[in-house]
């Protein structure tokens, strides 16, 4: 009996060993990195980032394990093609982990990339260390209108503004737990605010005031074009709640837009183009350059001066980080999100040289961007997945003019990026949890 048992056990063991060797040896090693979507191979992520999730590009089943070696996380990916029965063990791909901290939250708008209309939209915020997304303000709180252009000074979650469009709309100001709605169009030069820029002192906000319209090309790959008929810049003093402007940035013959302050607050940079009659027909001639106007003691002084101009690029949305300015450049116009050629450019403000931020850019539109509060990370929007729906990408910046390969904001499952029917809009870093504000905001809209 013991002998029989010994034979049985030895047979069982050899069978198990054979099975084990099959499962180990059944995988054909590949010298290539796995073909995954999104492309996370060799990206740099901050410590504590929510885990990256991905799919095989051909949709095949896969499994992976991770192994951390120093500041590099290696992903070991194995695939199993059920149809052919082939099993592949890919070369482990690295994900580099940066010690540079990132702000814990981002805020953005979610909206259908539809056209003129929307049903449900809102400003949302997301914890970067997890997949938690919460509604900051939805348009349900303001009676179904549009909420846009949210901004937080220095990423401070307790201070913010955003515009609420529609009946009874206005600009909403948050100071801690106090909320206020002001219709900018009813005070000062009677212009409504659009793109905001909060002065480093926190006292002033420069707004562009744009008359924006959409049009729809009859044929071709571009389905929407957005342009301004006119735009000017206004300044709001939060202390006195007054709105002023300056004649040289409020000219009928020019369109001034996308204001941004220098870190010291002594200059306001903005984009500017000549006004054109028949802007739709002549849209290819509308090119924005970069100018600035000095700012002293709460007022603009002197005349605007050209800071950067280029015959082949229309510049939009400058954002400054120390001596670096990140801009979006497109062939023409003021709304690069609908321009596949739109790319991000980095301007050295000390020597005036501008380079294309190649590592960040793609074949599709790469556009609206923001710096983290420490200037080490940048977040931007890109339509590289499908050319229509904007998704968010993050990249590390070394302060010397170099970015790392950007990575798609991770979701619990990559498919969320495909299944979501809304675009991410105006991503901004915030340094804390701003809370859900629908209840407070709706009180401002009670008739």
């Amino acid at each position: 009996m013991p002998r029989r048992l010994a034979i049985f056990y030895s047979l069982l063991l050899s069978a198990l060993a054979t099975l084990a060797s099959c499962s180990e040896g059944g995988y054909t090693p590949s010298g290539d990195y796995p073909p995954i979507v999104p492309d996370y191979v060799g990206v740099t992520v901050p410590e504590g980032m929510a885990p990256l999730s991905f799919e095989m590009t051909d949709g095949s089943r896969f499994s992976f394990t991770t192994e951390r070696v120093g500041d590099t996380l290696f992903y070991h990916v194995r695939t199993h093609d059920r149809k052919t029965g082939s099993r592949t063990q890919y070369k482990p791909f690295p994900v580099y982990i940066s010690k540079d901290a990132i702000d814990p939250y981002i805020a953005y708008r979610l909206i259908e990339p539809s056209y003129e209309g929307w049903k449900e939209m809102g400003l949302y915020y997301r914890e970067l260390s997890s997949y938690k997304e919460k509604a900051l303000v939805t348009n349900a709180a303001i009676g179904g209108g549009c909420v846009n252009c949210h901004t937080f000074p220095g990423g401070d979650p307790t201070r913010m503004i955003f515009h609420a469009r529609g009946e009874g709309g206005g600009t909403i100001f948050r100071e801690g737990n106090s909320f206020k709605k002001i219709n900018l169009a009813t005070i000062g030069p009677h212009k409504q605010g659009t793109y905001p820029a909060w002065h480093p002192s926190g006292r002033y906000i420069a707004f562009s005031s744009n008359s924006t319209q959409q049009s729809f090309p009859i044929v071709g790959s571009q389905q929407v074009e957005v342009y301004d008929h006119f735009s000017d810049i206004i300044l709001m003093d939060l202390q006195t709640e007054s709105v002023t402007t300056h004649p040289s940035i409020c000219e009928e013959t020019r369109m001034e837009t996308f204001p941004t302050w220098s870190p010291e607050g002594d200059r306001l940079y903005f984009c500017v183009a000549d006004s054109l009659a028949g802007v739709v027909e002549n849209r290819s001639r509308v090119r924005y350059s970069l100018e600035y106007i000095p700012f002293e003691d709460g007022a603009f002084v002197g005349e605007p001066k050209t800071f950067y101009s280029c015959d082949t690029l229309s510049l939009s949305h400058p954002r400054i980080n120390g001596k670096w300015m990140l801009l979006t450049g497109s062939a023409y116009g003021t709304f690069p999100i609908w321009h596949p050629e739109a790319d991000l450019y980095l301007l050295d403000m000390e020597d005036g040289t501008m380079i294309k931020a190649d590592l960040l850019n793609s074949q599709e539109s790469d556009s609206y961007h923001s710096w983290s509060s420490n200037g080490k990370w940048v977040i931007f929007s890109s339509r590289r997945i499908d050319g229509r729906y904007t998704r968010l990408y993050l990249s590390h910046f070394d302060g010397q003019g170099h970015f790392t390969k950007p990575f798609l904001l991770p979701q619990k499952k990559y498919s969320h990026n495909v299944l979501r029917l809304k675009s991410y809009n105006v991503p901004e870093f915030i340094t804390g949890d701003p809370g859900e504000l629908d209840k407070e905001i709706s009180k401002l809209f009670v008739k």
Partner: protein
Amino acid sequence: MKRTVTPSLLAVAVFLVSLLAQKYTLICQEYDGLFLLTPDYWQRAWGQSFPISGIVSDFLVQFFRFSLYAPFIVTALVVAEFFCLRRIFPRAWGDVPSALGACAYWVILALSSSPKTAIAILLISVALTILFAIFVKWKKVTPSPSVQYVIPSAIVCVTLIFICVNPHVRRTELYSKVKHFTLYTQWDKVIDALSPRVAEKESELTPFALLALSGSDILGEAMFRYPVHSEADLDMNSVDGRDDYYLSLFFKAALYDLLGCENESIHNLFQLSTQQEKGMSFMVLRKLVQEYCSLGNYTLMEKYCRILEKSTLHGQYVRHYRQLAASGGPHQEVDSVEVRSQIPVISHDPLYNLLKLESMGLHSKAGVERVLATFILRQDLPSFSSVMGMVLDSYDKVPLHFQEAMMLAGMDSDKITKEVREMFENFMMDAMMSSQEKMEQKYHGTAFLHFLFSERAEDAEVSSED
């Protein structure tokens, strides 16, 4: 045996009404519905009022896509409500209260745009039934035949008639039928559903009748059989922002699809989705798959396929389009900056859009005929003559109304028939002598009459300024 009379009659009645009098209404509920196993859908679904009934309703409505499933589901809901009520009310009362309640429930279901409210009621009824089953024991008595099945049967019959003749139900069914056949470009069925007499009553649907004529290439032959007074009847362009905005967006999506302008069709589909309760619908998703497949934008087509795959019933649909894409034409190229910046954009003037479509190479017979029809409706004979002169050779037989307009414009061609020439001569003579009433009787359904009595837009403006 007698206890089965009322529920059986109720089931047959509900099934037949749902199948025959509300078939397209129910199908169109699926068009506007959405049920997806995606995080965003569930987040939205739980955030709505009465989330459970909303989710159950969305789940059931997706089966309405198949015309036989919908009557079964509606019947099941009404009969379920009947049995719940039967358990709640004392047995001595027979089926009278349960038939009354179930019929009221049926009416609610028939008049609603989705079963959400009805499902909420049913859920409450089920809860009450369970409570009654636990706590209330009714005496077992045999009710009289009158309360057992005679009166309940009468209630069911009255409800059946009420629903069948209800103007709201009939109107919704007509609109749904038109919507359904337009969506599937079954133009002959649109024309069948929208006779000139029907269009007279439902003037909002006239543009759909004219669209169907365009789709059948008989616009120039038959448009004046319909109550056409202005361009708005042709292009539905003047309703933006009004209550029928949804209908106008649906119309424009179908119109531009017919004209081969996918960009504008997609534009209107997206706009349409924002007018729908859930901000997106099965119909829009399916149309987006079709339009992007037709454009060769397989990336976006695949996106919407993946979304549809998260529903219950679109597996075959998605496979079909993936196969089409795999064997289809080339991928849509991204236009160069130079090309892109020169492409004209859609305007609010449908005629301008039609002309631009032609200029961009999107030529279609329907497009040309709509241009000619627009000039006739504008009473702009010089422009009509100019365009007609260019396309005359392409016609073996010039459509009737275009011949009439040619006569009015003084164009001479051997393609104008003898009958039209004679009618024109008679018309000219009668115009001087006959009353408006007589002229309307004699020349009803001709372009001549449009020129005689319709006010030109420019004239109307001048007179209003005076």
